[in-house]
């Protein structure tokens, strides 16, 4: 699966093409060799994430899938989704299937807090949009769910995808805020 998407190259304000694809060893290698040294000591929430480990986990647990955004041969973003094991938590749509975003991160050079100005914008949003598209493709009617990292709450609130802020999840580590698509068409 290769899907052409657009990102904004910040330096010259140009819209450029990138590829959204299933994760390969090259993407995992980029995360290890290019991302991890920059993230080390950064204090970012994903400083200790280990994408190679996530990939191994995805091979163990049915329904886990990994995707990457690649631009000019370099990995710009990574996402792991669970398309099988999670269900909706909002009462009016309880038990329905959704695509749960288990992990999502952009390359450190795309984050203003680390690299100013960042290289590309739109990576995170394109990954979330793909999760929605995957949900439609699976017959889940676009429903997604995720636990947002603390700094990213504003991002998920403004995505215009109908994600409802369900507040801090008492069962999640660090009580991360849970977001889920609120489907209005069934009500």
């Amino acid at each position: 699966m290769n899907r052409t998407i657009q990102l904004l190259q910040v330096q010259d304000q140009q819209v450029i093409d990138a590829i959204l694809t299933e994760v390969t060893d090259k993407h995992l290698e980029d995360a290890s060799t290019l991302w991890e040294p920059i993230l080390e000591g950064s204090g970012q929430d994903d400083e200790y994430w280990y994408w190679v480990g996530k990939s191994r986990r995805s091979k163990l647990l049915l329904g886990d899938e990994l995707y990457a955004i690649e631009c000019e041969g370099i990995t710009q973003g990574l996402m792991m989704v669970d398309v099988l094991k999670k269900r909706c938590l909002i009462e009016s749509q309880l038990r329905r299937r959704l695509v749960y975003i288990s992990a999502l991160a952009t390359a450190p050079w795309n984050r203003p807090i680390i690299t100013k100005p960042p290289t590309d914008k739109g990576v995170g949003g394109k990954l979330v949009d793909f999760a929605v598209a995957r949900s439609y493709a699976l017959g889940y009617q676009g429903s997604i769910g995720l636990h947002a990292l603390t700094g990213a709450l504003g991002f998920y609130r403004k995505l215009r995808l109908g994600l409802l802020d369900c507040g801090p999840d008492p069962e999640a580590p660090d009580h991360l805020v849970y977001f889920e698509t609120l489907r209005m068409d069934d009500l």
Partner: protein
Amino acid sequence: MTQSFPAKPKAAPNEGTRHQRLMELIEAEDAANGEVGCGRALGNSISGSFSTRDMALEDEKLKRFLQAHLGHSLRAPDFDAIATQIQRQLESLVMPTSSQSLGSEPPPASTNVTAHVPTEALKELFQSQLAEFCSEAALKQLIQFSHQIIHKAVLRPRHTWASPIWVLRSETQIYIAQAAGIEEAIAKVKTQHPQETGRLEVITVGGILAPDQVISLATNLL
């Protein structure tokens, strides 16, 4: 309808709509200063208790089992909540974090958490699906977690929780309504505040993930 949830997919996007969507995504990204990450913390290595093959606990089988053993006191929403948490624990066992826990205080040692479902039956259920993938020790841990989760659910069944509390915003007002669903919440606002004719936006909801949940709102929203 008076809400703002444009969650419908855009059919066959052309270059114009694709560009517009990219600008929307960038606007959202800028709102969080480029921070877009999500995901629960997982450990960095696979537990040695698991083999490297596809593994899954069948949701429907688990719920049928719960229905058979707990149907007299719990209902479908409770079984869903229990199944979700057991699946989550299974994942945590595959990649343990340094601070792995149930996410809340364990019950006192004196509490008999195993009273609700026979351990042997639970073991049989898990063994039939997971035995070839994980060790005896991992199965034992999962059974122990499951007993605690079931115990919590029996003490406070989800179907007895109060209706969620919805926080809605119009152009000039914030409304807080208790209702089972969003449509009912909007209807309550309209009935009790007939002067409100504008668009209502859902800001947040409390009481979906836990009973008696405190809602926290940034002051700049008020």
